[in-house]
């Protein structure tokens, strides 16, 4: 996809942003999709690992294991925050996708 020459001059004042847009437009789309999917999958994986860890610690605490409750509750809280972050990112992506889908051609 090439930047359309006609709209280039009006965008000049925002040159850093225009450069950014130009760069991303030049990225090979197939590898871009792969990279994006990998990043997203890794994020999901990380959040899942945190939740599994927190779950293990809670299990260990509830069955009388030798764990510090402060550490357990922190692990739960961290997993919760990480999940909320991921959820917000996902919501934002879906929102952007919907916007693009509704573009009239």
């Amino acid at each position: 996809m090439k930047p359309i020459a006609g709209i280039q001059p009006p965008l000049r004042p925002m040159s850093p942003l225009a450069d950014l847009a130009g760069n991303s437009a030049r990225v090979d789309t197939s590898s871009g999709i792969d990279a994006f999917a990998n990043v997203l999958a890794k994020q999901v994986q990380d959040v899942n690992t945190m939740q599994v860890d927190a779950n293990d610690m809670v299990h260990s605490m509830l069955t009388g294991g030798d764990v510090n409750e402060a550490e357990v509750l922190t692990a739960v809280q961290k997993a919760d925050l990480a999940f909320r972050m991921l959820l917000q990112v996902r919501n934002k992506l879906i929102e952007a996708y919907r916007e693009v889908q509704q573009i009239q051609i």
Partner: protein
Amino acid sequence: MLRALDISTSALVAQRTRLNAVSGNIANISSLKDENGEANPYQARQVVFQTDDSLSVSGASGVQVAEIKKSDSDPLYRYQPNHPLAIKEGKWKGYVAYPNIDLTTQMVDALESTRAYEANVGVMEITKNLSRETLTILA
């Protein structure tokens, strides 16, 4: 942001260790024998903290327990000549050696570590709320 939670947690763990030491000291306030059954009065345990750089984030570091020291102050001698553990000879003949633990100091120590614990929980609450608030930027 989540690192700040880890730092507060390290403080909670450290303060909890200190509180455990205090409960051990108070529990053993009249222990005349040591863990091997020898007639050595219990020595008060003191928890020493040190900075833990493994958790450090932008200059802030966590805390960890450096060591648990045994207080080497002299035991408290009480004159009880008929006690089975009374000292048989020397300067303290007829005396029994009791642990030198001051209940008031121990209670103050317990109170202090409780307050420190509460303060760290307060910091965690703030960190947590800050993280939540930050997420609303995206929402």
